[in-house]
């Protein structure tokens, strides 16, 4: 009896084989645009919804935007999202480029763009923008800088995102750290922050600040870069060939500040990204240092009853703690990869890019800054919550130097060593020395 079952199973798989090897036949009518992105999958909540204004969060907004575009262009264009994970996105995108199997449109961080442009796998877009009716003159300066390499534009900017302090107003009030309007008092110096942290711990028994330090390298690297920039420091010299330098007093101080906060119990211990992001909703700290993309989700949580944020949510740009106003920033953008565009899909792809450009305000609802001057100046954008508090980002944002290759790998190293200082008690000097050694080893091999 078992044999027959086994034989049946084998027969089934044999039948499946020819199917497996036949490429899916391309249907005649609609042009297909493959669209590689991260931002998560949320078919469960937004599977077929085309109601963009009702969608919330990065995933909801991008999903409904695509659904709407597909509905508007029914029978002519189908955008097929290929949702990949943030962590392995560039590994996989690179593998696809090498394997000559590229998506038509792909998301890319502006800090990453240089590596791909240098290897000549990204299409320049100046002429295509003209054809599509996209006005590059409306891009903000940060966005223009982010997508321009050697004088040419290589990507359609999508947002500028930066590093914020998300506040749990209820807990801040409990610690007596709110002003007359009931808003949290944002510290203006490191000393003020430390005093706040002390007061907060006495009142609530909790650490003032939540950050992710476990299996997360992006957040830690941003924390480090921000404090480095606030002292006017940098680890990357101008010019593409110089070695990275992590031995400056600024670098040491940037890491030391975090190490001290951690040691004093003013940072949440050992949370990974998900733990920190969810923990903040549960009221585990007064401040969560994280990105622009969480604003809308936290507004949603604050509107509900019985969450840790029910007593109020507030957000502001990363405060200036070490003198000069500066905050780490990066941006998402859309690129066309070489080999992805052809005569058949060109018109449809340009139409899609124009659609994304036209709907930039929708994306800015996530909390990201719009990349269009006209949107930022519009009443619709300025009426979005807290945008007054984060508008300063467009002035003080510091993006990673475009000339330095392998930014993703460098971020990995910087973040790992940052985490090591927090979690393993590795000394600040050792961590900086290892950053320097590992980063230069990586950069020396890059071309």
């Amino acid at each position, binding site marked *: 009896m078992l044999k027959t079952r086994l034989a049946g199973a084998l027969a089934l*798989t044999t039948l499946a084989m020819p199917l*497996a090897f036949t490429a899916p036949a391309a249907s005649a009518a609609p042009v297909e645009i493959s669209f590689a992105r991260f931002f998560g999958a949320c078919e469960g909540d937004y*599977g077929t919804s085309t109601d963009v204004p009702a969608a919330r969060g*990065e995933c909801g907004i991008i999903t409904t935007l695509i659904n709407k575009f597909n509905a508007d262009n029914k029978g002519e264009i189908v955008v097929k999202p290929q*949702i990949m*994970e943030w962590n392995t996105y560039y590994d996989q995108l690179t593998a696809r480029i*090498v*394997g000559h*199997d590229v998506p038509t449109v792909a998301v890319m961080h502006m800090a990453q763009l240089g590596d791909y442009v240098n290897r000549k796998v990204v299409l320049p877009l100046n002429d295509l923008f003209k054809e599509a009716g996209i006005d590059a003159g409306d891009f903000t300066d940060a966005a223009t800088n982010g997508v321009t390499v050697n004088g040419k534009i290589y990507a359609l900017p999508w947002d500028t995102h930066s590093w914020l302090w998300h506040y749990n107003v209820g807990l801040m009030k409990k610690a007596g750290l709110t002003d007359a309007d009931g808003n949290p008092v944002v510290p203006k110096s490191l000393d003020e922050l430390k005093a706040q942290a002390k007061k907060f711990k006495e009142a609530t028994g909790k650490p003032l600040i939540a950050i992710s330090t476990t299996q997360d390298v992006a957040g830690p690297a941003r924390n480090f870069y921000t404090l480095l920039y606030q002292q006017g420091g940098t680890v990357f010299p101008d010019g593409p060939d110089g070695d990275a330098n992590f031995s400056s007093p600024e670098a040491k101080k940037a890491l030391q500040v975090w190490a001290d906060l951690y040691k004093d119990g003013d940072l949440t211990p050992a949370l990974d990204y998900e733990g920190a992001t*969810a923990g903040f909703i549960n009221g585990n700290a007064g401040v969560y240092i994280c990105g622009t993309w969480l604003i809308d989700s936290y507004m949603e949580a604050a509107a509900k009853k019985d969450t840790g944020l029910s007593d109020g949510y507030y957000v502001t740009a990363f405060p200036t703690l070490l003198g000069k106003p500066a905050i780490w920033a990066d941006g998402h953008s859309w690129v066309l990869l070489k080999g992805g565009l052809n005569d058949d899909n060109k018109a449809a792809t340009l139409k899609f890019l124009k659609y994304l450009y036209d709907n930039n305000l929708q994306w800015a609802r996530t909390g990201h800054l719009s990349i269009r001057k006209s949107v930022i100046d519009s009443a619709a954008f300025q009426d979005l919550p807290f945008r007054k508090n984060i508008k300063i980002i467009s002035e003080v944002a510091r993006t990673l130097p475009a000339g330095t290759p392998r930014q993703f790998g460098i971020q990995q190293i910087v973040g790992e060593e940052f985490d090591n200082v927090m979690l393993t008690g590795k000394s600040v000097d050792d961590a900086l020395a290892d950053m320097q050694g590992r980063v230069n080893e990586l950069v020396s091999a890059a071309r």
Partner: protein
Amino acid sequence: MSLSSARSASGTASRVRAGRMDSHQFGDRLLLGLVILLAILWTVPLVWVLGLSFKPNDVLMHSTGGILSAPFTLKNYADILASSNVFTWILNSIIVSGGQTVLTLVVCSLAGYGFARTEFPFKGVIFALVLAGLAVPEQAIVIPLFKMFADINLHNTYAALILPRLAVPFGVFLMTQYFRAVPREIEEAALLDNASRLKIFLVVVLPLSIPAQATLGIYTFLASWNDYLWPLISASKPEMFTLTVGLASTQMNFAQSEGIGFLMAQAIFAGLPILILYLFFQRHIVTAVAGTTVR
């Protein structure tokens, strides 16, 4: 070996031990008790995760403590059914594992018969070279393999996911051993009837090798189903992910934490196909995995 023969053998063993009933029986009970306790510990993680998968995400956000108390929900599973990814991945895994199994059986049976029962020039040398390949781990060749498949634009296809494992000489080794044990007289009788070697192989020898085929087939299917490194490298498009790689991708997710309950439901759902197979074919799977390695 098979467990049915194992049973009678160990039956004898316990009868043998029955001589020193009292102390032995006590020791035996104690040992069994300990092992049962260990087995319970062994299953606790899975049971707990099963429990979590029936809890609403927002409850789990606060606490994962009370998995036995209400509220319960089927929403996590409904969400899996609504988002088609897991199904695509399961289908991919079935196609890849099934294809690999069938092709391995065909290729290895032919080669095993060739090495065991036919003569051709340089056979000894060739066989030795093939056996040497047993020592080569997958990791030593993935980088060049990746490059090769990239050069011929074959990544993100079923062919790329299936082909590399077909070159592993293990199955050839196994089938050669097996065919060597088939009595020669059976073939010689057929040869007198002037049948070709291929016909003898197909009609006479192959049917005799069904047990070995089952063993190799199950082993290959399992190994392929659980393969991780190569599919991770070769399949870079979500629609080509196998289940193993797809699940890895959902665990590393960054901005969108889809909720603990959903993730746990995914673990359970993804584990079900293979666990059901295991339930039905337990003895054969055990025999295959243990049997192939013993040889």
